[in-house]
């Protein structure tokens, strides 16, 4: 191909990607930049760090941030522990069982988070499903709505599919013969999983973990519907600042802090993925 031909090839490439690129540049990057500027406004046209000082200096806001990160960590770890065996089951099964398991994992994703949370409210409410069972067994009733536990359980159900799908896709790529080799060498099934399969699936585990963490950090619907004023997370706080207090600069600052946490998690993912790939 002549040099002129390949240059035209390159130019056409840029031309074809331009609409999508420009659209995102304007409507995705634009808002993020505006958000950044908004957080530095001081009401008189000047620049100030006051909003960030306010956010990070007040014990209440720090507590909310800590609660948000803590909740997300709990949800992420629970998803990993509960999801790994399921991913393993999907990767190893065939036929009807496999289809059923995939259906099991994908169906919750198709249901809106508001609807799923409503379902949990019915289960955990005072006259809900859980308490009906407990009453039947003549045990004390518990009300999990409005508690961190109830919120965490609901969030795990919402986010578990993401973890399972990430891990399962990596597990599918692992050569079955490696398992056979380990067994031939005398390893028990459990040892095979711990020493052979898990390290090989690390990439998927990392992807799933960071994905679930990022999603739970940013989620607010479940907490909004199931929580009370004592269970506050950062996204919900940001929404409140916007709606009730109309405090745009402060909301913008809080939002940027949240984005920052997500960026750290994503950077961690890239770093860990790189190391896992090199093993």
């Amino acid at each position, binding site marked *: 191909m002549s040099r002129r031909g*390949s240059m035209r*090839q*390159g130019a*056409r*490439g840029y*031309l*074809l*990607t331009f*609409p*999508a*690129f420009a*659209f*995102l540049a304007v*409507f*995705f990057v634009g*808002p*993020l930049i*505006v*958000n950044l500027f908004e957080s530095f406004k001081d009401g008189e046209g000047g620049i100030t760090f006051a909003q960030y000082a306010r956010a990070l200096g007040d014990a209440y806001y720090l507590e909310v941030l800590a609660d948000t990160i803590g909740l997300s960590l709990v949800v992420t770890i629970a998803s990993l522990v*509960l999801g790994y*065996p*399921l991913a393993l*089951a999907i990767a190893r099964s065939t036929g009807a069982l496999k289809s059923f*398991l995939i259906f*099991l*994992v994908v*169906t*919750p994703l*198709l*249901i*809106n988070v*508001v*609807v799923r949370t*409503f*379902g949990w409210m*019915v*289960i955990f*409410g005072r006259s*809900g*499903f859980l308490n*009906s069972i407990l009453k039947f067994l003549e045990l004390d009733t518990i009300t999990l709505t409005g508690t961190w536990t109830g919120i965490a359980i*609901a969030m795990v*159900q919402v986010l*578990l599919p993401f973890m399972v799908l990430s891990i399962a896709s990596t597990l599918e790529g692992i050569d079955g013969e490696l398992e056979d080799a380990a067994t031939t060498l005398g390893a028990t099934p459990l040892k095979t999983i711990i020493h052979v399969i898990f390290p090989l699936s690390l990439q998927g585990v990392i992807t799933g973990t960071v994905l679930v963490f990022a*999603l739970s*950090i*940013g989620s*607010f*619907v479940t907490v909004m*519907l199931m929580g009370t004023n004592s269970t506050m997370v950062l*996204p919900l706080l*940001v*929404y409140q600042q*916007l709606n009730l207090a109309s405090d*745009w600069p402060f*909301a*913008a600052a809080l*939002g940027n802090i*949240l*984005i920052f946490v997500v960026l750290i998690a994503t950077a961690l993912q890239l770093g860990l993925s790189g190391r896992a790939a090199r093993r």
Partner: protein
Amino acid sequence: MVCYLAVISVFLLLPQLIVVVVAFSEASFVSFPPPGYSTKWMVRVLSDPSFMKPLWNSVVLGLSASIMAAALALPASIAIVRHSFRGARAIQNFLLSPLSMPALILAIAMLFFLSDIGLGNTYAGLLFGHVVIVLPYLVRTIVAVYSGADPRIEEAAYTLGARPLSTFWFVTLPMLRPAIFAGGMFAFLVSFDEVAIALLLSNASSITLPVSILTYLTYNYDPAVAAISVIKMIIVVLALLVLERFYGLQNLTMQSR
């Protein structure tokens, strides 16, 4: 293992199943198990414009956002896969980046931005917001399928004298149609379920279904929510059936005809 699978199946499916049951409850309040069964809530919700209008809005918004995103994603994806140019990888990652942004924060940022440029509280703003979050799904699907397709088919067309535009229309496009549809379906479902952006950017006339359910839930707690949720679930299942019937999910890995 069987025990574990049984427990986790219940865990994953239970909330949805309960919602379906409650939708047909006879009671005026939410309780499980319901005291009796009736279709009255389904009927009430189907004849209630305060639920039906948002439902219509959501369907229209989902279709519009998907089509617009497809129009943007298709040329970009083709370029990324077939046209070698520097920065193709970087641009691809950029086009996928909205996936990593917490939805609510993006929604708030868009609110500020749209107000600044005068599109605040308009339908265009809501639509563009959804196109942003939906675009990555289309790019990802089309790029995945196109990368796996055989380039020799298009090369054969060129050799036979077809101009680039003809090749695109008669060879590339049919090859990519399953990917566009699958990606568009993902896009539609994502938009259909989306809460954060719709919550902040929609107004009384453009309100979407998830937002109306959310608002209803903050003031009411009755089986109407379950009923409208069941209707929503039915639409989603229908959309998936359409995809399966017309294109089949196995077509996504089609190499060549």
